[in-house]
C-alpha cells in the first residue's frame, strides 16, 4: 500500500479529511452524498467497525458500493437491523446513542447554525426554496457531536443564515443548554479549503487547519464573516495514494449519469 501523495481534487480532500475524523467503532448518522461517501471511505480504510446508521431505519449498514439514496436496497440487505423510521428517530437518535452526526448546509453561520430551508426573500415567497429539514434538526440536537461537510464560499458561509433549520451554537455560549439540546453540537466543519472548529470559549467557528495548497487568505475570502484563524494554523496531510484509490473505487460504484433524455415509462 503506497502512502505517498497524489493529485487530488478539493472534494476528494474534503471527503478524506472527513473520513479521517471517524474513529473505529463509532456510531455515525449519515445522509446521502459526501457524508455517506466519507463514512464508507472510513469503513473501507481505518475504521472497519464504524457503525453506519441511515435515517431510513438501517442500523449497521455495510454497503459494498455507494448507495445512491438513503433507502437503497443495499443498505437494508447489509444492515444488522432494519427498523421503522419512527424507531430510528425515537429509540436510536433522540436518546443520544449516536456518536457522530454528519450534516451538509446550504448556508452556515459563524456559530455553526445551518440553513437548508429557504434562501432570500420571505419564508412564504423565498428566492430559492430548498428541500427543508429532513432529519437534520434532531441530528444537530442529539448526536454526541456533529460534523458539517460543506464547500466553502461567501454565499454559503454567511454572517446570518436566512433560516435556522438546524442549531449549531445558536447565538453563542450557553445557548445549546438553554435550548435543551443534549448533544455537543458541531465539533468540526470540514470544507474544500480546510477545517473549522468552534472556539472553546466563544463557540465561534475558527479556521484550525488548511488543506495542502490552500492559503488562509483564500479561506478568509471564501467566508462571509470576519473569519477567526487559530495560531498556529496547521496544514493537514494530503490524501494518501491508498485513501485516493479506495475513494475512487467507491465513487466508481455509483451508476453513470443517464445517456438518454427520455424517461422510462411505467413498468
Amino acid at each position, binding site marked *: 500500500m503506497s502512502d505517498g501523495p497524489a493529485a487530488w481534487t478539493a472534494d476528494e480532500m474534503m471527503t478524506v479529511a472527513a473520513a479521517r475524523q471517524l474513529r473505529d467503532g463509532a456510531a455515525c448518522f449519515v445522509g*446521502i*452524498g459526501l457524508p455517506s461517501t466519507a463514512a464508507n471511505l472510513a469503513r473501507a480504510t481505518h475504521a472497519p467497525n464504524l457503525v453506519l446508521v441511515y435515517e*431510513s*431505519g*438501517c442500523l449497521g449498514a455495510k454497503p459494498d458500493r455507494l448507495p*445512491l*439514496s*438513503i*433507502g*437503497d*436496497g443495499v*443498505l*437494508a440487505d447489509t444492515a444488522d437491523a*432494519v427498523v*421503522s*423510521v*419512527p424507531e430510528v*428517530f*425515537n429509540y436510536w*437518535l*433522540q436518546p443520544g446513542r449516536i456518536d457522530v452526526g454528519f450534516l451538509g448546509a446550504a448556508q452556515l453561520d459563524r456559530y455553526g447554525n445551518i440553513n437548508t*430551508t429557504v434562501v432570500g426573500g420571505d*419564508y412564504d*415567497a*423565498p*428566492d*430559492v*426554496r*430548498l*428541500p*427543508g*429539514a*429532513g*432529519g*437534520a*434538526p*434532531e441530528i444537530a*440536537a*442529539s448526536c454526541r457531536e456533529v460534523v458539517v461537510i460543506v464547500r466553502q464560499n461567501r454565499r454559503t458561509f454567511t454572517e446570518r443564515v436566512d433560516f*435556522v*433549520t*438546524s*442549531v449549531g451554537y*445558536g447565538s453563542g455560549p450557553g*445557548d445549546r443548554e438553554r*435550548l*435543551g*439540546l*443534549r448533544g455537543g453540537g458541531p465539533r468540526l466543519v470540514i470544507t474544500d479549503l480546510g477545517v473549522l472548529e468552534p472556539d472553546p470559549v466563544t463557540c465561534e467557528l475558527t479556521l484550525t487547519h488548511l488543506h495542502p495548497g490552500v492559503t488562509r487568505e483564500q479561506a478568509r475570502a471564501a467566508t462571509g464573516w470576519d473569519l477567526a484563524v487559530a495560531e498556529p494554523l496547521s496544514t493537514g496531510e494530503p490524501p494518501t495514494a491508498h485513501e485516493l484509490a479506495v475513494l475512487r473505487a467507491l465513487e466508481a460504484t455509483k*451508476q453513470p*449519469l*443517464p445517456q*438518454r*433524455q*427520455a*424517461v*422510462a*415509462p*411505467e*413498468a
Partner: protein
Amino acid sequence: MAKLVSLADGVADLVRDGDVVALEGFTHLIPFAAGHEIIRQGRQDLTLVRMTPDVIYDQLIGAGCASRLVFSWGGNPGVGSLHRFRDAVQHGWPRPLELEEHSHAGMANRYVAGASGLPFAVLRGYSGTDLLRHTSNIRPITCPFTGETLTAVPALRPDVTVVHAQRADRAGNVQMWGITGVQKEAVLAAHRSLVTVEEIVDELQPVPGQVVLPGWAVTAVAEVPGGAHPSYAHGYSVRDNDFYRAWDAVSRHRDTFRDWLDQHVHRAGATA
C-alpha cells in the same frame, strides 16, 4: 377484511377532492402508480402529506392536484431539487401551494400519534429552529414529573393513506419488507387506506424483516405489479435511478413536464 379492488376503483372510492392524503414509502415502495391514478382521475384541492415529497409529489403538485403540502424534506434524492415543487412555491404554478413544514422526527411522531389514537406526540425536537415560527402545529409541553420543557406535535390523521407493498393474500393481509419506513403508522393513522401490491398470493410466506398489516386494518388492496416504479419493491425490482436523474430535466420546464404527464400518465391508463 380488506376489499380487493382495481387501482382505478380503489382511487375512485377512497380518494376524494379536498382530502388529506398521505402517500408514504421511504425511497423504497413509493406508490407511484396510485399517484398517477389520482392525477388521471383529476383529484383537486388535496392536502398532500409525506415525509419526503420527492418525484411522486412533484408530479402531483405539477399536475395541479394539491393546494397544501405537509412535509419534512422535499427533494429528488441524490439528484437535486424538485422543480415542480419549487415552481409552485416560488411562482404559484399551476396553483399556489401552502406549506406546513416539519422535521422527519416530528412527522414520524405525528403518524405515531395518529396510529396510537392520541391527539399529540412528544419529542425532543425543533428547539431553537425557525420551523417554530411558521406553524402553530409545534408547541411546547412540560413534563409533569420533571418540569422539563419538550416539544409537542399534533397527530396526523389522513383521510386516506396509500402505500405500496410486495404482497397481499386474498383476505387483504399485507406483507412488506426491506425498508418499511413509516408505512405501518401512516396506514394505521388514516381513516381509510389503499395498498397496492406487486402480487396477490394464496398464502403469505414469512420473510425476515417483514411488516404485516392485517387485512382488518386495511380498507382496500389492489394488485399493481411494478406500481412502485421508478421506486422499487425489494425482492421484485430495483430502483430506476436513471428515471430519477432524468426527471431533473423533464421537470425543469413546464412544457416538458406537461408533455411527460400527457404521455406517461394521462394516455397510459391504469395498469390495474
